[in-house]
């Protein structure tokens, strides 16, 4: 029998509860030393302490700032260049090998360069975040523009739509679902790289707080911050998905899914 919606919710909630209970009991039973993995209740206590600290909120703000600014830059550049490269076939052919080459370069390779050029500045973080998330958007937008229906394009031509009209009414609606996929991927990647920059370079933010907690032996605080990073990740995923649904509400694929 297929579990219904309500039952699924209960199963999910009990799964989560079981997970938390497991993490409480394993260290208490001594299966794992609690200096490696403190019980859930102590992590929750450390989390509550963190929530009362202004430093924690400052770090959270720093992380979110790096994430948001970097993501905005990457999306702007990715969409702009993607529309350009995608709509000129010669340009697309000439750049595809370069894009394929630059894209898999791990952006962590730029860490030493970022440190030399910008130190622990916000710009270091932005360099990593933008490099990593730019390709996600660009590749998707190029693919989206390529997917434009030639008949629709010809129709727009015969109706006398200008270059902007064609981009606005034919290219953009086709590329938008792709662009939103790129945005969703980029949003997750940007968070990973923002936290990496803080962890490795020491830019202010959650990642640096985690590194500091680890070196100073504040184990429950470290886990509490990791939990916050995870919740931030969940939030970013949910928000990106909600935005995608909102922006693409007109799209047949979204309309079909609606209850």
């Amino acid at each position, binding site marked *: 029998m297929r579990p219904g919606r309500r039952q*699924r919710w209960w199963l999910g909630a009990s799964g989560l509860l*079981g997970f938390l209970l497991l993490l409480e009991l394993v260290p208490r039973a001594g299966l794992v030393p609690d200096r490696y993995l403190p019980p859930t209740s102590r992590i929750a206590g450390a989390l509550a302490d963190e929530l009362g600290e202004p430093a924690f909120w400052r770090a959270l703000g720093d992380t979110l700032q790096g994430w948001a600014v970097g993501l905005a830059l990457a999306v702007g550049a990715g969409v702009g260049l993607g529309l350009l490269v995608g709509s000129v076939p010669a340009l697309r052919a000439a750049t*595809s090998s370069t894009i394929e080459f630059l894209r898999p370069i*791990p952006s962590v390779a730029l860490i030493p360069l970022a440190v030399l050029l910008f130190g622990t500045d916000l710009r270091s973080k932005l360099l990593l975040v933008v490099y990593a998330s730019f390709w996600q958007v660009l590749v998707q937008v190029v693919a989206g523009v390529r997917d434009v229906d030639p008949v629709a394009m010809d129709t727009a031509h015969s109706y006398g739509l200008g270059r902007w009209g064609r981009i606005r009414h034919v290219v953009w609606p086709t590329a938008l679902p792709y662009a939103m996929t790129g945005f969703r991927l980029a949003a997750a990647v940007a968070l*990973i790289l923002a936290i990496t920059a803080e962890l490795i370079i020491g830019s202010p933010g959650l*990642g640096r707080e985690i590194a500091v907690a680890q070196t100073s032996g504040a184990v429950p605080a470290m886990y509490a911050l*990791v939990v916050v990073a995870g919740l931030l990740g969940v939030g970013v995923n949910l928000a990106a998905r909600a935005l995608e649904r909102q922006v693409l509400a007109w799209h047949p694929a979204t309309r079909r899914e609606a209850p």
Partner: protein
Amino acid sequence: MTAARRVLVAVGLPVALLALWWVASADSQSFYLPPLRQILEAFADVWLGPRLVDDVLPSLARLLAGLALAAVAGVALGVVVGGSLRLRAALEPVLEFLRAIPPPVLVPIFILVAGIGTTMKVLVISSGCLWPILLNTVEGVRARDEVLEDTCRAYGIRGPARLRHLVLRAASPQIVTGLRQALAIGIILMVISEMFAASSGLGFTIIQFQRGFAIPEMWSGILLLGLLGVVLSLGFRGLERWVLGWYHGLRRAQRGPS
């Protein structure tokens, strides 16, 4: 387009960009942006010597070990979770949360548990790579063809044969997608686990160069990481074409002659 022209189009821009870099940096006086000639000389000096065996190959071995561990665990768990509706419903929130934890924060946790040796790095890589493989396997197992499923039941195919011919085969395109995502995460984790705390390895060496202001050497390291990323992704694409040849052929046949 003829083959020669296609090659020309593909290599044209990269060659032009490299030439531009070469010329523009040829008599660069900037300390941070040395001439490309110097970087390439440093590349040959640094990476084609004993460092290849001491630093580069161990890093790659750890990456592959971590990836292999994650693949085995991810596919095994994915088959179990994807096969049961209830289990999936129960685990979904937990998996969503674990997947959303940015993998680099695992580095401090595993340093705590396993020190800074090889074990820590392999654990970090495999636990970061696990989630994309696991979640994609779950999706692949879930979306298996119902007719094939019924056919298997009707013919009494069960146990390992069912697993091999129905479940894993149906999930394999998704598993490969998961592996590709995992590879990208694995490279990141390989580098930063060595940058954060290590005494050897690719990431460690590059950071040492940066701290010692050995700028051409540092650039050569960045170049090497880029090349590794590209070579690994090309290698993976070759592997995918080989493993999923049947699938791409099927898709082409379904789409009809074009």
